[in-house]
């Protein structure tokens, strides 16, 4: 299978292994050829592909624009046929990413993609929607049907069984699952402090979790089906210069408790951010009252205000003692990940 998809110098990424009705292995993945390298943005465009044990690799037609990046495919099959989900975005006109799904009786007759949720990472599998924030949080939601709840909906009203998995101090780059064990999530990300990547295998049924390595390296964006394992191995200077690889020495699991699961709550926190500004100290609007349609921010703004005191909250000093901390009057607690804020005046990110 791997040899089949690497007949030229194209890069491959985001593998997802599953089986067809006859039990034959199918590999969904993303591919980026030489023509897909954008020198201006120094990044790649990716497109969805699929290859079978007996079928040559082929593009999955999505009808999305040529400049749209398609990534993170997953798929399941039932009596109605195939259901493919993927994440796409990055178009010049509107770069916002969404989770899409396409359904059809077979992979060559999939319907038009439907944007089901605005996110950069995630999937739908049956009645389960899983999506990640850019940082720190993965949300697992049980769906009773369409329409899928939108972010502005009250999280308390979500069906029971929903959980959030918190991975403090990380960027979330992919959320997938094992096709042969759909309760087992595969969450790939990167530590914000040291750039180390990881993949966490998280069993929703037992809450057991492991960090996964292949050949002694983090199994970046891996897929597992039975005893088959594939991951995206970095080849070159650029972060996205990767090819799907099978480990030569197998897969190793290391128990961990890095993921903290909890029920969705209205107590939303602002957390460490995806990017950081450099240069001189930044301004702090004296009375920022930025509001959005965000449920999260609305919740924050409605949160009980912290007791006022004449001096700065001592927890800010704690925060400032952290080597990588940033100061903002709104911060009440922080250090290495979760930051809670006393928001009447949310700090623009990068400012605490």
């Amino acid at each position, binding site marked *: 299978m791997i040899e089949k998809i690497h007949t030229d110098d194209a890069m491959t990424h985001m593998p997802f292994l599953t089986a067809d009705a006859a039990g034959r292995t199918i590999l969904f993945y993303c591919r980026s050829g030489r023509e897909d390298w954008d020198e*201006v*943005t*120094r*990044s790649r465009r990716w497109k969805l592909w699929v290859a079978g044990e007996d079928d040559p690799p082929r593009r999955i037609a999505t009808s999305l624009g040529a400049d749209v*990046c398609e990534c993170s495919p997953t798929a399941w099959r039932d009596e109605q046929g195939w259901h493919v989900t993927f994440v796409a*975005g*990055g178009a010049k006109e*509107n*770069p*916002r*990413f969404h989770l899409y799904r396409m359904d059809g009786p077979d992979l060559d007759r999939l319907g038009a993609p439907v944007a089901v949720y*605005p*996110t*950069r990472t995630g999937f739908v599998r049956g009645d389960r929607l899983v999506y990640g*924030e*850019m940082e720190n949080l993965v949300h697992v939601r049980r769906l009773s049907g369409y329409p899928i709840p*939108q*972010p*502005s909906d009250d999280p308390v009203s979500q069906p029971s069984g929903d959980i959030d998995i918190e991975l403090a101090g990380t*960027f979330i*780059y992919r959320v997938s699952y094992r096709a042969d064990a759909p309760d087992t999530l595969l969450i790939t990300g*990167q530590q*914000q402090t040291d*750039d180390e990547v990881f993949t966490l295998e998280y069993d929703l049924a037992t809450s057991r979790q492991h960090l996964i390595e292949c050949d002694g390296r983090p199994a970046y964006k891996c897929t597992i089906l039975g005893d088959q394992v594939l991951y995206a191995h970095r080849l070159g*200077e*650029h*972060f*996205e210069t990767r090819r799907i690889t099978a480990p030569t020495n197998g897969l190793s699991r290391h128990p961990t408790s890095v993921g903290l699961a909890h029920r969705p709550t209205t107590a939303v926190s*602002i957390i460490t*951010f*995806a*990017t*950081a*500004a*450099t*240069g*001189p*100290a*930044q*301004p702090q*609007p*004296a*009375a*920022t*009252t*930025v*509001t*959005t*349609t*965000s*449920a*999260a*921010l609305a919740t924050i703004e409605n949160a009980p205000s912290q007791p006022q005191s004449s001096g700065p909250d001592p927890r800010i000093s704690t925060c400032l003692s952290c080597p990588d901390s940033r100061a903002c009057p709104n911060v009440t607690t922080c250090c290495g990940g979760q930051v809670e804020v006393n928001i009447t*005046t*949310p700090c*623009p*990110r*990068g*400012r605490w």
Partner: protein
Amino acid sequence: MATAGKARLFKTGKRSLRSNAKAQLFTTSGRCSECCTPYVLASAVTNSSNPTWNLTPYQGPGKATPCSFWRLIETGSCYPGAYPWYGAGCVDSTGRLVNLPNSFTSRFSYNGYMQLQIGCRSASGTQINWPGTCQNLTSVYSC
């Protein structure tokens, strides 16, 4: 009354053209524009191969509509539940983006679709209109 482009003086102030050819008005004191249109001053894509965006070209007077607002925002992840702002401030009466940092560096390995936006106070005076579709109406902040 530092501005870019051509200007015409009137009894009540000055009418001039921004670098994008749109008009703007100033009072005779030069302190405030009475005509402000939200717009994207600059944009860039950051990623691990290209993590730093040099913002120094947008520092100094005459870079934006006086008395407006600026923000640094990532538009690829502009979701209702997200807060994709990476900096914000005011534009002073000379058109200078107050406290705009020298640069912006992303630690996110994948593409960040960054925009430096100029926002305008709404007619009611309590909100800011921003360009585009990403959180394009927010409450006024003071600087």
